[in-house]
């Protein structure tokens, strides 16, 4: 009886020790991979930062007309943003390597999934970035034009345009990532349709007199003298 208990304890201890012995190298490899990746990420980030600062990247970006990119992330200069992107990419890669070493069974599938999703993710990021740039450009264009046309709600109009483009870009990105499926498409269609309907109702009901006056002005434009006969040139 005592022998059997001893044997059971021995086997249990053996199994735990073997388990720990199997687990420890993987854990150590994970920790090492993450530490090394963090160090490498920081070094590469610093190197990228140095190079971009040497090239005067922030000012060049402004000269090329990408002011909106700097405004999009006002606390981070474009150089800092790129530096962080590089560092975090290396850290994430380190985690993936560490996880592969840690548990060979699950992680290859995870890595495969991540790698397969990368092109879609990249495209989605580009779509969102372009959407943000376009939204800011159109927002400013509408704001200036509306003020020059003396529309009192110029800011509201420009914000509406900005958010319309942003929502459109976000819906496109999510659709590309296959996140949300039909809900995103349906949600966007409802939102967009709602905005158009609201505008149509606003014009049809609220502003019908303005529209009819404007229509009359256009019809009789040739007969009437222009409002502003002042010669600016």
């Amino acid at each position, binding site marked *: 009886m005592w022998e059997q208990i001893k044997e059971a304890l021995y086997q249990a201890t053996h199994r735990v020790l073997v388990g720990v012995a199997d687990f420890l190298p993987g854990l150590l490899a994970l920790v090492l991979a993450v530490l090394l990746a963090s160090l490498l990420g920081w070094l590469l980030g610093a190197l990228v930062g140095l190079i971009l600062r040497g090239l005067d990247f922030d000012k060049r970006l402004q000269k090329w007309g990408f002011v909106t990119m700097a405004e999009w992330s006002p606390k981070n200069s474009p150089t800092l943003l790129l530096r962080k992107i590089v560092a975090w990419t290396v850290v994430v890669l380190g985690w993936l390597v560490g996880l592969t070493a840690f548990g060979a069974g699950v992680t290859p599938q995870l890595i495969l999934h991540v790698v397969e999703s990368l092109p879609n993710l990249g495209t989605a990021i580009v779509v969102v970035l372009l959407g943000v740039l376009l939204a800011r450009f159109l927002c400013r264009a509408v*704001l200036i034009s509306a003020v020059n046309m*003396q529309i009192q709600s110029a800011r509201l109009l420009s914000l509406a345009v900005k958010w319309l483009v942003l929502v459109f870009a976000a819906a496109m990105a999510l659709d590309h990532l296959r996140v949300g499926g039909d809900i995103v498409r349906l949600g966007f269609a409802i939102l967009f349709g709602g905005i158009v309907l609201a505008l149509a109702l606003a014009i049809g009901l609220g502003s019908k007199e303005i529209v009819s006056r404007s229509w009359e002005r256009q019809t009789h434009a040739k007969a009437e003298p222009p409002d502003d006969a002042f010669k600016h040139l």
Partner: protein
Amino acid sequence: MHDTTARTAAAAPAALATAEIVVGVPSYNHAGTVASVLRAAQAGLGEVFGGQSSLLVSADTGSSDGTREQVRGLRAEIPLLRELGLADGAGGAASPGVETRELRMILELAHAVHARACLVLDASVTSMGADWVERLVRPILDEQFDIVAPCPARHKLDGAIGNGIVYPLTRALYGKRVRQPLGSVFALSGRLVERFLARKVWDIEVSALSADARAVSEAICGEFAVCQAFLGPADHAGSGSSLDLSSILATVLGSVFDEMNHNVSFWQKVRGSEPVRWFGTPVEIAGNPPPVDTHKMWESFRLGCRTLQDVWSVFLPPATLLALKYLARDDATALADDLWARIVYDFALGYRLHVMNRGHLLRALTPLYLGWLAGFAREMAAVPSQDVERRVQQLSMVYEAQKPYLISRWRWPDRFNP
């Protein structure tokens, strides 16, 4: 650069190897006015320069409203008339600035026939007199000037973009008091034509609205002799492209700021300004000027101050933004001259640094311009034309006084950045 090889053979007749004077009329959809301009030019050439060989040239590559047919119909009536343009069917681009190409064709012809003077007229003018030809060409032939800028008679508040921005700015930059750099007609000497062609001044597409300002600044920077001539009133018919105020501002100032960037080494050395010789006598304009709705203009300015602060803050310094905020809030009625001059200089710098889309930047000036104009028009409403002229000269002196501010910002833009 545009291909002008498809030019019609009617351009330079073989029999006429040289001409003393070339009068060119670039046109683009000016069917309603081109004939009267050509007739007036013909009369002017015949009356005054009958003894000298001359050419009257109509240049048109893109009109679609029958302008070219109008010109062809005048061939029998005006024997001097020649046509320049692309061969039928070659098609001209219908875009703003298309007249630059016609302008270049006229200069090339003037150079080819060794003209001593080349007069460029505006096909949209409805009030051109035959005397314009003599007034503009005589200083070149008799006094050896290289460019004659026009000074048409106008109502006291007309030409506010010229009065409030272009004249004071070009005067402060280049040091010559050319009163109407946006006069829309000008005369050039043969050697200045040669210089413009050699430097490919007209190879860049610029709008016809600012082609004259470009000619004047290029001539001053090349140290050519500049003078100006008084003319009668210059009424313009609406042409094919009708532009709103912000588009006009963007077109004109875009070109002026481009010139500024181009000639930076010249204007940074210039201090003060000197008068430019006048020819002729000023012509008084009859009738009352059209009424100006200053209240509407000031409201546009206030709306801009409430709404466009975010846009302006990209290139206007905080002190200016603060001053504008107070102006919009208080019962103020005008922008101070020094504030206005600094704003124009800041816009020029923003344009140079490309701090945002240049079209947006230039259009964002419109409410500020209307604010300045409202104050100016209110102040000048009840005073005679001579006082308006004095006031414009006073504003120009403020521009000159603020020039060190421009130079500092130009050299060290970061120092002022908000």
